[in-house]
């Protein structure tokens, strides 16, 4: 029992999902949580997801996107190492609506790794309103990586987190898996007892040099 306690507490990277309600944040989280062989380890509900990525533990924080709760997002951003800003490729105004979140990210970690994600890629052929160029330009302006993805088809969803993992922990962290598909690379860490020491030794193939403490 204590093992479970230890395992569930330690998080290497806090990732916060931001974006208006309706752009598909929750769907993306869900897709990420369930679209792999490794079960998610959240015990309470779907709003928080804990996943292991090459021995690193990602805690994914969903936020309420309604306008009235937007300012509360600052609480959620506190200490975040990465932020996923979601807009809807089929809604032109959803991109610049993200401006409001940039200020809230001030409470995130310095150098918080940002990814701009265009959701609902599956609808893009018929209903695209945000062009790739416009999105890329915006991404550059906020110093973010840009990806388009679909929670429905699963396209690029894993890539979002791979990019984050690489962006934060470096390429070395990933070399354990040749094909880069995290779905097929269950963590070598014993899922029951993950503690710092374990984590490092488990991820040794990739990044022994990762300094800890």
């Amino acid at each position, binding site marked *: 029992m204590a093992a479970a306690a*230890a395992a569930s507490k330690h998080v290497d990277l806090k990732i916060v999902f931001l974006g208006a*309600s309706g752009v598909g944040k*929750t769907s993306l989280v869900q897709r990420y949580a369930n679209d792999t062989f490794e079960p998610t380890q959240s015990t309470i*509900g779907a*709003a928080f997801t804990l996943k292991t990525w090459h021995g690193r533990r990602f805690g994914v924080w969903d936020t309420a996107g309604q306008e009235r709760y937007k300012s509360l997002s600052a609480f959620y951003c*506190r200490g975040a190492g990465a932020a996923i800003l979601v807009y809807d490729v089929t809604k032109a105004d959803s991109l610049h609506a993200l401006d409001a979140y940039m200020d809230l990210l001030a409470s995130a970690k310095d150098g918080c790794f940002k990814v701009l994600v265009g959701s609902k890629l599956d609808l893009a052929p018929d209903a695209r309103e945000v062009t790739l160029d416009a999105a890329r330009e915006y991404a550059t302006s906020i110093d973010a990586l840009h990806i388009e993805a679909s929670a429905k088809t699963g396209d690029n969803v894993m890539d979002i987190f791979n990019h984050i993992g690489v962006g934060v922990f470096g390429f070395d962290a990933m070399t354990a898996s040749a094909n880069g598909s995290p779905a097929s690379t269950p963590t070598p860490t014993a899922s029951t007892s993950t503690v710092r020491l374990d984590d490092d030794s488990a991820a040794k193939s990739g990044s022994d040099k990762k300094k800890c403490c």
Partner: protein
Amino acid sequence: MSVSKFVEHEKSTNRFLRELATSPRLGDVVEVLATDRATMLIVPQGVSLEPLPTPLPVQFIQSHVVYLNPANPSQFVSLNGLPGSLNASYSELLTFTPPLSDPDAVEAFATDPRSVFAWPLYETPLEVLADQTEILSVQLLRIASVVLAGREIDIYITAHPLVFDGCSWAKHVVAPGVVAGAPDVRTSAVSSPRTHSALATSVANFLRDFRPHKLAAAALKTRSTPASASVAAASPPSPDHDPLSAAGTESASASSALGSSTPTSLDFQAFLAQLQHPSAFEVFNTVKAFVGNFRRAPPPPRLMSETVRSFLESTASLMVAHPMWSETSPAEFANAREGLEKYVMTKLYAKAFRPGGDTDAERDAALAAHIKALATFLRPHHLDIKPELCNESAIKLAANELAKMSHYKAPRDKLVCVLNCCKVIFNILAHGSSTPAGADEFLPLLIYVVLRANARAMHSNCDYISRFRSPVALNGESGYYFTNLVSAITFLENCKPSQLNMTAEEFDAAMAAAPAPSPSSAPRSPPRRQLPDPLSAANSPAPDTPSVPLVTSLIDMGDAADDASAHPPPLIPSSPLSVPWARPPPLDLQPGDNPPPAETDAHPQAEAAPSAKGPRLRTDDEGNIIFAVDSPRTNKLFDMPSPTAGATASPAIAPTSTATSPSATPLGVTSPPGELRAALLAVASPDELTLADVRSLWADHRALAAENRRLKAALLEAQLRAIQPREELAPASDSGSASS
């Protein structure tokens, strides 16, 4: 003799109480009482004790100290395994004999006394039970409280001692009083008196005092009390919670399953076993010294968190290097770290909770008053909560879980209450929609639950958690849900009309109307909309709020509520919400009031509800029982040294123990039984969902008491071995062990 005089008389003269307070041999019993919040004393009135031998038999003591059922505070089991319950009208204590027959049950009881509450016995309606076993009852005279070992302990004052088959004092119980609990009992009790010779006199008295009308009423009512919750759930739901009970029950059981997989299980006992081991003496000594210093001279509030954290870190390093822990697995060591946090914070609670004293208490009161006003008119649709999610009974369950926060001292335990609350909410969401719910759906519902719970000391509890809970934990799942709670509170505290789907006029009118019906005082100016609004500030291009640390920003925002009068609007929709399940009926808490929470011992006046002073009488809704409310300021008889203060306590520590008694305000207040029962009826056994958790926590508490004693022995031994003498850390009965 007036009611309060009777209680005071008992408190000052009762032999049982006096023995508990003074006899060294009862130190561990007192320690159980002092450390385990959900215990009570059954105190037979003084005259009934006269025939009993002196000192009282140990078995007598054991039979009259009871653990309460976390899921139903009217049920109990004594230290020696005698199961019992209050009757439906709270006028009698019923005990079921024989206590323990099944060997498995005996075994389980020895391991975890509260496991007995899972027995069918406790879920069987009394009239059914009466056919199977013998039910004895003793009249309940008063519910009151005494201060023992520095802690306020609730007591049932009964007309006579409890008796059971084979107990040595049954022959002394000569006065009338032992009667059966339900009409059917009459048959069984009468038919078997010869086999229970020790009870022969009792049975005779039973026949004499039998009052069928009252007992029949009690038996009838029992059917719908949570004592038989599982039975009730299986049968057609009562009108009270008709449309919702099914879903509520379902989510309860679903949560129960989840509860067992809680990531936060902690084997506190294992840690204590390690800490108390003589070889870990240096670690223990370090902890002891820190706790002593902290309590003598608490650091300024803003430094407390830092101080505690760095101590915990350094102690953890010490432990890593210590032979006791150096060989343990990472998981075991993580457990030890958790245990250390819990141990230290439990010891420091009086100083570390509400370090700002009255200021903190006022902040809590202001928030509670504001939420109370909001609760008079805010409905789910104001928060865009879908109608299918408005499962009121489940929302109450969640609110109850949240309200339990105040019953625990360890930050981790408080956080578990938050998580349990969130689990219930996700169950509601799972029932209400086909797709998995995310934060968009979760947060509004949590806000609504916080509104309905209006739990005590929300600010202080949140501050305490964020200050003292391990940062590692706060970065993970529990941190996520804690952040949601803080957000919900912040939202409620600062919400603007537009955020509630209202116009400013509607909002102002509603807020103005909210406190008005208060009979005893003029309506207070409710709205505080002219106050700084951190939310809008955060929305604006140059927000300060987001970058402010959590605690600080909460504190700042707290000021916003200052002018919210402490006078609460009476209109709070339903009283059950703040009924504390984890505590027994005679709580110092009235739903809707803002009473001094248990943890405000050090500053009890601050939150005192004005109406709760002095002695009072109450009747339940049948009007057939009167509950006394002691005047808490007077006659706190058993002001023993606090278990934490110790025999060698320095004067600086003394206030800790004294603060709980002479200066305490309305602590002895009992809860209105009618309202409590309403709550019991309205919510089908709310604690089912977390019983596993609750049990494990209580096991922890109990372990603490037992381990403390062993620790002391080890310490003494070590001190005798010429180690420099130091003060005791945790001596509930120091005088006893020191002199022995």
